[in-house]
């Protein structure tokens, strides 16, 4: 065990934990004033619900002994036998440290999806949704890629969660839009973000926490962590600029929300690549992310899909780009190093993750819908979810 590595993994866990409230503020600022609490609540409660699930069975399903490449065993149920001995996958830190660090990823992933169905999902149904989604979507995919499952056997590279976190959440987001439908009033009247400083606060906490997300994924305070840290910051910076410029030329003015979204797109895209590529490649990955995600959102608008806060466009598409880019730029093994195998493996892992997330999310949503319904009543939606679901108003005298 190494005290420097422990120090780094603990603070990284804390940083990733802070990303979930960061996300809550990012999303909370983007919605209208009458719905801010409902979406903040969805992120906040994920910290509690998934926090408990992970400790009980989520970790074991993801990282327990491999069963046919598909799922982990339940021998670590309720952290049985998970203690302070060296972590099987990271011998310089205790097993519990590895567990809690991974748990922070499990928490934020379902929270990412909430931006898609903003302003219209029942809270009770949401609770069932994250329990099922975390168990049947997140844990298996995490197992495939990081827990010794079939994608890791294939050699798929995902440094910090391009497939496991962003593609899985982004594609699930798209499904929720298909099944829940548009917000009342979509396309009819404007729904401007109600608090842009809150959006920037969220972005700042996300960017800050992402250092733990990516550089922490080195699982120690080592050279790889340093590389991942630098590529992360660089991709965030180069992600910001094209979005700003495209917005500017499209609409005549540079937008702060646009700049923030571009930064997030850059961060998403560098996630799977962070410890595998050079800083120069990170410049390109961030740059590309911004352009590709921007285009994806235009497409979505054309199809009148009401992915309210662009989870698919930014996380889904940004994650796909990042996973592919890893196959292109990964030092030594990527396309640029003259190698096509890695790229093909990456494509396989992208397609597998997309397919599984789409199908499993569809099943989960349909099941919940048939039992208790997914969507609030039109009157509740009109009044706003904060009052109608939570009887609270965000701002008062």
């Amino acid at each position, binding site marked *: 065990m190494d005290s420097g590595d422990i120090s780094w993994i603990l603070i990284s866990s804390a940083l990733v934990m802070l990303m979930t409230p960061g996300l809550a503020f990012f999303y909370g600022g983007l919605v209208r*004033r*009458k719905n801010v609490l409902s979406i903040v609540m969805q992120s906040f409660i994920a910290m509690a619900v998934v926090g408990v699930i992970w400790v009980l069975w989520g970790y074991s399903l993801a990282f327990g002994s491999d069963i046919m490449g598909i799922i982990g065993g339940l021998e670590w149920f309720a952290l049985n036998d998970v203690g302070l001995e060296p972590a099987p996958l990271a011998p310089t830190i205790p097993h519990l440290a590895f567990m809690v660090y991974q748990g922070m990823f499990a928490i934020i992933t379902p929270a990412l999806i909430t931006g898609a169905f903003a302003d219209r999902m029942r809270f009770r149904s949401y609770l069932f949704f994250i329990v099922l989604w975390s168990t049947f979507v997140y844990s298996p995919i995490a197992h495939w890629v990081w827990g010794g499952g079939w994608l890791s056997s294939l050699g798929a590279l995902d440094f910090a969660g391009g497939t496991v976190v962003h593609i899985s959440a982004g594609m699930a987001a798209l499904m929720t839009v298909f099944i829940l439908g548009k917000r009342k*009033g979509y396309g*009819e*009247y*404007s729904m401007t973000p109600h608090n842009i400083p809150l959006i920037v606060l969220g972005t700042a906490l996300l960017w800050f926490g992402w250092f733990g997300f990516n550089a922490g994924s080195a699982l120690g305070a080592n050279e790889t962590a340093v590389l991942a840290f630098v590529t992360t910051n660089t991709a965030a910076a180069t992600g910001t600029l094209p979005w700003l410029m495209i917005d500017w030329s499209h609409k005549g003015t540079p937008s702060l929300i646009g700049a923030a979204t571009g930064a997030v797109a850059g961060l998403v895209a560098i996630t799977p690549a962070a410890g595998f590529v050079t800083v120069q490649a990170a410049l390109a990955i961030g740059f590309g992310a911004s352009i590709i995600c921007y285009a994806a959102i235009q497409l979505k608008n054309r199809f009148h899909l009401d992915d309210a806060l662009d989870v698919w466009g930014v996380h889904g598409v940004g994650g796909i780009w990042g996973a592919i880019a890893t196959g292109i730029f990964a030092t030594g093994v990527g396309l640029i190093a003259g190698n096509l195998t890695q790229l093909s493996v990456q494509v396989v892992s992208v397609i597998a993750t997309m397919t599984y997330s789409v199908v499993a999310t569809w099943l989960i949503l349909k099941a919940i819908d048939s039992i208790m319904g997914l969507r609030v009543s039109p009157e509740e939606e*009109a*009044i706003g979810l904060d*009052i*109608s679901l939570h*009887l*609270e*108003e965000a701002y008062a005298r």
Partner: protein
Amino acid sequence: MMKVEAIIREEKLDNLKNALAEAGFLGMTVSEVKGRGRQKGYTLNFRGKSINVDLLPKLKVELTIDDSNINKLVDIIRKNSSTGEIGDGKIFLYPVADAIRIRTGERGPDAI
């Protein structure tokens, strides 16, 4: 002159604003209000104490216009801010004694 004051749903403002502009009613003043009417309210809770929230957010739109335009204006407002459900709001008309443009000092109908 008459002041036309409409209490409308927040989400109808864009609609109404554009319709008014098209019909040549540019001057207007908007403010955020909360209202109670037939639309039933809710009860807020804070750590065991409950508070009645029957006041829901609305917008108040005020336009001072010439008497001759009143019916036209009322029609535009009704057409562009009703959904047919309870809570659509009210229009109130008040007599205006005079109007003055601050910049120029013009008075009466010329000022609006």
